[in-house]
């Protein structure tokens, strides 16, 4: 044996103590709430290991499942709604508050050490006997919860239901205007059509090309122009709409390779579709021969 005095529990403790302290400091010092929450998750998982090392396997599981899994995830969900972009001003509202707070925390720590630390006298009894009395830690806890603490346990259920109801009431928002029915929506759409000529039907879907069919690929009209409403106006404003000429280029190259005689117009090469002579396929065939265009004019 190389290190005879180091047990698994003390190894876990001394390994995880810096993690816990750094995690706790990260929780209170991180600028962003999400970083705070992740540091807190590290502390909570380390605490679960400490529970496992102190003969509390049930609390080990509950700590990970309830605290890290449920409560902290609830925090993260609320952060998505509330806190991610809220920046905290670093100006002190009360002058000297930070120094005083650090002194107070230090004083409180010393007080705790002297008050609670003195409560520990002698060697720990250990839970082996208490755990084995009912055949295990979980069985022992169950015997206590459904025996001596059954009233408190029942009160807990009422507390949880009250909390759930309270959250529902708090999160509920009264609808300020009546919800429109299907019939009203149709009437409104057709009135808009009669007054402004806005199309009452669905908008055209984005274009489907040989290699692309994402939402940023504009659909082409029969005359080769871009259907403006086929892509979202947000994408158009952001300037991230694909250029149809780029989208068609691979098809053109392929057609050039397999059928050079019909390659001047991929639309006619791929399908046996002949565009009306009066409306040449603009957009599909951007560059016209100079001679041809002069003839058309």
């Amino acid at each position, binding site marked *: 044996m190389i290190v005879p005095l180091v047990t698994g*529990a003390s190894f876990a*403790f001394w390994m995880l*103590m810096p993690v*816990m*302290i750094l995690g*706790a*400091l990260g*929780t*209170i010092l*991180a600028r962003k*709430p999400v970083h*705070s929450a992740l540091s*807190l998750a590290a502390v*909570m998982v380390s605490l679960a290991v*400490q*529970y496992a*090392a*102190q003969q*509390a396997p*049930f*609390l080990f599981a*509950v*700590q990970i499942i309830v*605290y890290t899994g*449920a*409560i902290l995830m*609830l*925090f993260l969900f*609320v*952060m998505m709604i*509330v*806190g991610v972009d*809220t920046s*905290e*001003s670093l100006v002190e509202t009360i002058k000297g*508050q*930070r120094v005083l*707070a*650090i002194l107070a*925390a230090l004083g*409180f*720590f010393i007080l*705790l*050490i002297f008050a*609670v630390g003195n409560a*520990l006298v002698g060697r*720990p*009894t250990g*839970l082996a*006997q*208490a755990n084995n009395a009912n055949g295990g830690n979980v069985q*022992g*806890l169950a015997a206590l*919860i459904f025996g001596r603490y059954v009233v408190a346990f029942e009160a*807990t259920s009422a*507390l*949880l239901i009250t*909390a759930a109801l309270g*959250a529902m009431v708090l*999160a509920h928002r009264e609808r300020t205007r009546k919800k429109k029915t299907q019939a009203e929506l149709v009437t409104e759409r057709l009135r808009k059509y009669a007054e402004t000529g806005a199309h009452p039907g669905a908008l055209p879907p984005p274009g489907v090309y040989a290699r692309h069919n994402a939402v940023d690929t504009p659909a082409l009209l029969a005359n080769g122009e871009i259907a403006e409403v086929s892509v979202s106006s947000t994408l158009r404003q952001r300037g991230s709409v694909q250029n149809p000429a780029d989208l068609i280029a691979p098809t053109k190259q392929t057609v050039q390779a397999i059928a050079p005689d019909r390659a001047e117009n991929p639309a006619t090469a791929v399908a046996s579709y002949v565009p009306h002579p009066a409306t040449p396929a603009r957009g599909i065939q951007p560059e016209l021969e100079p001679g041809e265009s002069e003839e058309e004019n």
Partner: protein
Amino acid sequence: MDPQAYIVMSAILFSIALLGVMIRRNVLIVFMCIELMLNASNLALVTFSRMHGSLDGQIAAFFVMVVAAAEVVVGLAIIVTIYRTRRSASVDDANLLKF
């Protein structure tokens, strides 16, 4: 393993969380610090349970966890409601009850 070390660890975590409650003004971080305090006290409860060889401390820690779950549900709902009306997650902005 000496239980004294666990108690000191618990006191350290509690004091750090207390410091966080006093110096931070983002309501979510303050709330997380309260959770950290509950966790620190749970560690002390589990340690005392082992110290005295009875499972009552673990039961207490279990009830603390249940109460913390209920508290988080209501607390976060309150935070979301305040954020909806005040558009802020700072504890300084919820000051209507200030005397």
